[in-house]
């Protein structure tokens, strides 16, 4: 019967209760959507980072990671490459020569990371061939091909088939360099990456370095991200002298972004909870105040404090919780809709792309988040119920009844 009383009491002041219920509903809806949007945005970023930059796993000599010196070559890199290529878990793999140097056009020059790749393998792993705006991907058919990004081309005033000068140190520390011809211009969407990276054929780079089998880096893409830890452990065990890193280690900002999903849930959630707590407390205090006489009467005839407390808590919980499932459901519908159709960030894309963010966001949300939000609302309502309930049991029946 306490439940009945609590339930009916909520509808005594319809408008007031509807305001709270509506706020919870809208809040939960917005929260669900925001969380999903945020998550998709970040996952998109992470996927992009894995795709174009880090892959799942990278293998280097530890010294190379410390200090990107040309001399820190992978020992037997080609052999390791061949054996990992055959692994069941491998989706794609690439062997690279990587070094820092200068790129010089007739108009400008700048420092750059030069990566020598094996085109057919590299295509599979970074899919840069899909991001080509003009020209083609490297193919090794001619000597000294180079691929630059659109941004860098603009900056250096480069065009397709134009020549550009690369300078760097060879394995003996001697300065060397050569003229390369632009065969392709690409755009990944990540401006920072685009401005600091160029691609050439590993064959050409190794010849200039004076070491045909030179390699610094193996990038590995797995069929299943879930296998990351297992594969990483296995390679580490087999090659204790090498540094095996996963994408989170390679790119700490990716790890940060992954944590960011949790952090933003916490931040949005806390703001929402605080607003809700004040709203609910306010409404319930009014309700308790209005019912002073009634509550006094109940205590006079024999309703003890625990029961009065329980009645107000129950009423508060009901009030707080009614809107939540509806809000979650609307959130689910919205997320599903945008999961299907995507949200076009059109107008903002210019800014977003600079940070490597995709411009069409397809939302998705894991079921955990629904549970967390539901639980959060429950906790919020519980916290909000404490003060009004205490107010209620502090009433002195004589005083409440005197006012009759």
């Amino acid at each position, binding site marked *: *019967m*306490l439940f*009945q*009383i609590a339930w*009916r*009491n909520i509808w*005594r002041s319809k408008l007031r209760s509807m305001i709270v219920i509506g706020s919870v509903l809208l809040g939960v809806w917005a929260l669900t959507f925001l969380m999903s949007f945020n998550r998709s945005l970040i996952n998109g970023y992470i996927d992009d980072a894995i795709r174009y930059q880090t892959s799942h796993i990278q293998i280097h000599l530890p010294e190379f990671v410390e200090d990107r010196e040309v001399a820190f070559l992978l020992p037997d890199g080609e052999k390791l490459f061949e054996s990992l290529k055959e692994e069941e878990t491998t989706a794609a793999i690439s062997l690279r020569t990587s070094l820092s140097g200068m790129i010089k056009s007739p108009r400008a020059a700048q420092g750059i990371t030069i990566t020598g790749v094996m085109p057919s393998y590299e295509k599979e792993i970074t899919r840069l061939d899909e991001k080509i705006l003009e020209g083609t991907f490297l193919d090794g058919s001619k000597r000294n091909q180079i691929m630059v990004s659109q941004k860098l081309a603009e900056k250096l005033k480069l065009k397709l088939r134009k020549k550009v000068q690369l300078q760097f140190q060879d394995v003996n520390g001697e300065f060397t360099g050569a003229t390369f011809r632009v065969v392709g211009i690409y755009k990944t969407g990540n401006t920072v990456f685009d401005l600091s990276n160029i691609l050439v054929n590993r064959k050409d780079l190794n010849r200039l370095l004076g070491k045909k089998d030179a390699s610094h880096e193996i990038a590995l893409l797995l069929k299943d991200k879930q296998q990351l830890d297992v594969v990483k452990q296995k390679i580490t065990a087999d090659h204790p002298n090498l540094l095996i890193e996963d994408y989170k280690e390679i790119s700490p900002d990716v790890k940060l972004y992954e944590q960011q999903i949790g952090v933003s849930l916490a931040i949005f959630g806390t703001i929402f909870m605080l607003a809700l707590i004040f709203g609910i407390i306010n409404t319930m205090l009014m309700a308790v105040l209005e019912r002073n*006489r*009634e509550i006094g*009467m*109940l*205590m*006079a*005839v*024999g*309703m*003890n*404090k*625990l*029961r009065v407390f329980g009645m107000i808590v129950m009423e508060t919980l009901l009030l707080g919780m009614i809107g939540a499932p509806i809000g979650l459901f609307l959130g689910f519908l919205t997320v599903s809709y945008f999961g299907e159709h995507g949200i076009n960030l059109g107008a903002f894309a210019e800014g977003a792309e600079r940070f490597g963010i995709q411009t069409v966001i397809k939302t998705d949300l894991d079921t955990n988040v629904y549970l967390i939000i539901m639980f959060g609302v429950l906790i919020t309502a519980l916290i909000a119920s404490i003060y009004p309930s205490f107010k209620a049991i502090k009433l002195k*029946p*004589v005083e409440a*009844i*005197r006012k*009759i």
Partner: protein
Amino acid sequence: MAIIEINNIEKTYNPSKVPVHALRGVDLQIKKGEFTAIVGPSGSGKTTLLNIIGGLDSPTTGQIIINGQDISKLSDNNMIDFRKENIGFVFQAYNLIPVLTALENVEFIMVLQKKDKKARQERAKELLTAVGLADKLDKRPSELSGGQQQRVAVARALASKPAFILADEPTANLDSTSTAGLLDMMAKMNEEEGMTFVFSTHDQRVIDRARRVVTLVDGKIESDIYNG
């Protein structure tokens, strides 16, 4: 044996600021089955006395013994439980829970007493029938007249099987027909069930129905008369 025994009760409000001596040494014994009116001019201390008897307020000095138990030493929460089991209350107004029907209001006190559902529904129906509201079981208080609401309150008070029922000016808000009806009903419960009633009133017609009339003046008992 007296079910209510109060000895030398004094009650002073605001003892530190402007003291109001509401009761100045009241002794009273009420036996089972009595039908007692507490009367007196406004401000004479009727409500104060009933509140103290009902354990809603505590005296400044003196002793209250209900059913042989000294209740002045009970904690707040124990006092609530004591009231639930031993005392029925009828107030001047706002006796009922507005969101419950007449039947549920009567049942409610038995819910607090943890009676099982079937037993309490039966008893609630029985009592509402006895107070003449058999056709109003499903009505909410707002759909009942003042007199009908007070009858529900009496039924609720009876439902808990208390030792006695306290009613502070139960007819104050009622017209004369409803007043007579309520009094008839209370008298019937008193005669047929032997229920003890203690009520305060200003109303001469109500005073005339009482079998014992205790008159308070200025916080003291001025007279205590049995009418046949």
